[in-house]
């Protein structure tokens, strides 16, 4: 079956044996090594004897790499162990490939395994930089949300030729996430939120799109991103992988919704809009756990959409972390006409399935609820897997990958990050507003040309709370220590200022939509 199972007939040395192939290999090979000079002089070969005390040597076939070991000889050719190379008859041929004796050269033993680390690769070629640029992998962006697309766009604006690959765990369609909180009030179907299909955005920006692909780990040393659709070499990596809902242990993922992306929202809407048996009410009972920003917005919107909503929080009032008590009070009053009930000061202890339709929620203090759907809005955290695999500095207190405010560079100079997954100056940024500026600063840093106005990625941003019944805007830091004063407090409107010795540190304006205020004043 195989060549060596039945040794093929030896070819004779001579014109055929040392034929064109062998000569070509030898000719294209190494210039005559210096140590050829160490070969025994011809006289020694003529006498047919190497000095008996000399150690046995090895000779390598330049055509096939076979090694003739003097210690072993070549039994098939009648050369006993110990036969010196120069004692081999001239018509001897390589037992493997058939070339002649002349095509052998002295062989130094292989480097021992220990020498592996010490053996250096060749010095850099003069044209290495040019070769590198010609075939260099480009930028790989992880994340198909706003931050990922904004980064791709900013990079493309800077460099029309840069190879960009975008890896997205979801489909990567372009949409405005904040709108997820006001879909009902605006009477929109989830599909209407998509501003641009991922494939269209990719074509427009000249981006290679890997949708439904999970980024698994980063081999930072080899500059390779490992994904579920293969491994991508990168010159620069941009992490725009967002933050993920943080679920308390009492809320199992298979029983509660988290609304952090369009696909999850589609799932929730499909569950709420599913056809019901005849006679059953269209209205669903939705329980929202967590009355922070997202929880209040979603609860308000679902209630405006006609569902009965119960909103739970461990704090006694909604938005307790962001608002002064009077503002929370006005928000509760704005909800008074809606099928929306706030239950404060409770902590969920258990969630269980009642049947295919109903989910049961129990609190530590003994309350229990049944709902058609349970939504957890219990905060966000940046998943650490990718950052950890690359050994990136992670701000555990803020819950984000630590990046430089000016360049968005992580602790690895080849890796940048932006959007919800980063922490800048000890604070995580979970808002939409800074993302476009971060993308521009990042693209400038990657492409080597700073922004003309200098980086401004860390400018403070206004916080807009889209509670449909009473939208609230906050400028400055509402959590700072100080005293709130009321500038205006009339039906449908509340304006407050937070003061410290140095002056105003935050300003809050809550204004009901026009039609609500009209109703109030009537």
């Amino acid at each position: 079956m195989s060549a060596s199972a039945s040794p093929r007939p030896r070819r004779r040395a001579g014109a055929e044996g040392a034929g064109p192939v062998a000569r070509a290999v030898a000719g294209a090979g190494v210039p005559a090594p210096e140590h050829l000079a160490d070969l025994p002089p011809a006289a020694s070969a003529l006498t047919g004897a190497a000095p008996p005390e000399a150690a046995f040597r090895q000779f390598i076939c330049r055509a096939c790499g076979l090694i003739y070991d003097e210690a072993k000889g070549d039994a098939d050719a009648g050369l006993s162990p110990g036969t010196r190379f120069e004692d081999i008859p001239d018509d001897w041929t390589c037992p493997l490939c058939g070339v002649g004796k002349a095509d052998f050269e002295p062989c130094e033993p292989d480097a021992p395994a220990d020498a592996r680390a010490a053996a250096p690769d060749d010095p850099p070629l003069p044209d290495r930089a040019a070769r590198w640029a010609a075939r260099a992998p480009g930028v790989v962006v992880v994340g198909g949300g706003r931050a990922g697309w904004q980064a791709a766009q900013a990079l493309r604006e800077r460099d029309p030729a840069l190879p960009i690959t975008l890896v997205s765990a979801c489909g990567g369609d372009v949409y405005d996430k904040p709108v997820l909180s006001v879909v009902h009030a605006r009477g929109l179907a989830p599909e209407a939120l998509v501003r641009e299909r991922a494939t269209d955005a990719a074509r427009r920006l000249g981006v290679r799109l890997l949708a439904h692909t999970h980024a698994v780990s980063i081999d930072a040393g080899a500059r390779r991103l490992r994904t579920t659709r293969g491994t991508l070499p990168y010159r620069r990596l941009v992490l725009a992988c967002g933050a993920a809902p943080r679920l308390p242990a009492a809320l199992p993922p298979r029983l509660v919704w988290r609304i952090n992306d369009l696909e999850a929202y589609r799932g929730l809407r499909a569950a709420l809009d599913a056809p019901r048996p005849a006679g059953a009410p269209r209205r669903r009972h939705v329980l929202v756990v967590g009355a922070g920003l997202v929880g209040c917005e979603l609860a308000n919107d679902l209630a405006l959409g006609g569902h009965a909503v119960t909103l739970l929080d461990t704090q006694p009032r909604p938005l307790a972390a962001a608002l002064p008590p009077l503002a929370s009070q006005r928000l509760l009053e704005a909800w008074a006409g809606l099928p929306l009930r706030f239950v404060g000061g409770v902590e969920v202890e258990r969630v269980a399935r009642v049947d295919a339709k109903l989910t049961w929620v129990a609190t530590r203090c003994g309350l229990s609820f049944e709902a058609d759907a349970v939504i957890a809005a219990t905060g966000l955290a940046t998943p650490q897997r990718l950052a950890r695999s690359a050994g990136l500095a992670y701000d555990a207190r803020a819950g984000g990958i630590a990046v430089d405010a000016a360049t968005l560079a992580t602790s690895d100079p080849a890796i940048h990050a932006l959007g919800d997954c980063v922490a800048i100056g000890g604070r995580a940024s979970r808002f939409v507003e800074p993302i476009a500026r971060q993308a521009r600063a990042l693209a400038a840093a990657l492409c080597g040309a700073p922004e003309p106005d200098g980086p401004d990625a860390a400018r403070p941003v206004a916080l807009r709370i889209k509670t449909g019944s009473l939208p609230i805007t906050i400028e400055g830091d509402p959590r700072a220590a100080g005293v709130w004063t009321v500038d205006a407090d009339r039906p449908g409107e509340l304006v407050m200022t937070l003061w410290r010795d140095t002056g105003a540190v935050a300003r809050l304006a809550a204004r009901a939509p026009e039609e609500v205020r009209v109703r109030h004043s009537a």
Partner: protein
Amino acid sequence: MDATLETPRPKAAAPDPASPAPATPCASAAAVSDAPAPLDGDALLDAVRRLADGPLAELADDIDRRGVYPRALLQQLGTLGALRAHHAGRGLPGRDADYGLAIRAMAEVSRVCGATGFMMWCHAACGLYMEQSCNPALTGAALERHASGRRLGATGMSNPMKCFAGIEPLLLRARPAVDGWRVDGTLPWVSNLGPDHVLGAVAAVAPHGGRGGTDAPAGEIMFLVPCEAPTVELRPCPAFSAMEGTSTWAVRLHDHPVGSDALIADPARPFVGRIRAAFVLLQTGMGLGVAQGAIDSMRTVERPLGHVNRYLDERPDALQAELDALTARILALAATPFGTARDFLIDVLDARAHASELALRAAQSALLHAGARGYLLSSPVQRRVRESHFVAIVTPALKHLRKEIARLSAEEYPA
């Protein structure tokens, strides 16, 4: 998969299906008394390296092309202690299970012969099943006999692993019987088998009274199959690339009795879930070793061919750095081989995938470095290309690993 033989070869400890070999004498504790004490740590790795670079290197071409089954070498590895490193309380004072050591020993062997490294894994996986079964009949003296290599073992888990991942149905069917179960069916290819070997297998349990096949299974059992049993038939398989010497057979069970003495787990699924990370981690030794062997062979042609090889994409220094980083990552994961956290499982599957990819790249690059001399059938360089392909397709194959990582990475939502 578990891998093959074109025809039964005399050297390969080939069983005669018509007359199964008699059972090897039951090993008693006394049988070990004259065996040398197993080695550990660096002393073990040094000894394994010597065996690999010496007798194994001599035999590697025969294993590959003549289908020689290296039974004696495997048993020498057992005597050295290389087949017991991953077992707890392995008779070494102050030492507990050391998966990192088991992986490194397997890598040293795979560096020289990927097929033998694969057989080491088959045997180690079987030992993992026995040890974790907590069945007194499969631990104790039986496990000692296995861990020392006096009795060799195999794993028939390719099919169940794929079944549990939703890729294919179970091939073995078990019927409840008075004294346990009776099992029928055929596993198409199981490696490292012989007439006196054992293998771990899983069967779907048919509902009571059913003959299996039509009724929905009532769960699965996992059990050890002694190949000398008259109800076990080993049948030759077609030839497999790079795995000729792995003594791979189709295993046909005819009304094979499984009693409590042979039971590894009932139900099987939770057990398989528990040992999955350890099972996959052990496999990484194959990929690491094949990659290292390829890098080594690139180095050996550096002096004569470096002046042209520098134009190739993947160079030995960069590959070695990547391999070293991956090895460190795998050894860190191997410190907790029975982890079940989602992120840990993803890391383990990803490390196994990385080892496959690196072996593929390194083996391919080594061939490009060696040129025609590496393309000779007798050259380990081209053999390693085939071995690297095997590392990437043996269950869990690269595609299965990625599919499972994607499944574990997806967010879970209410149905």
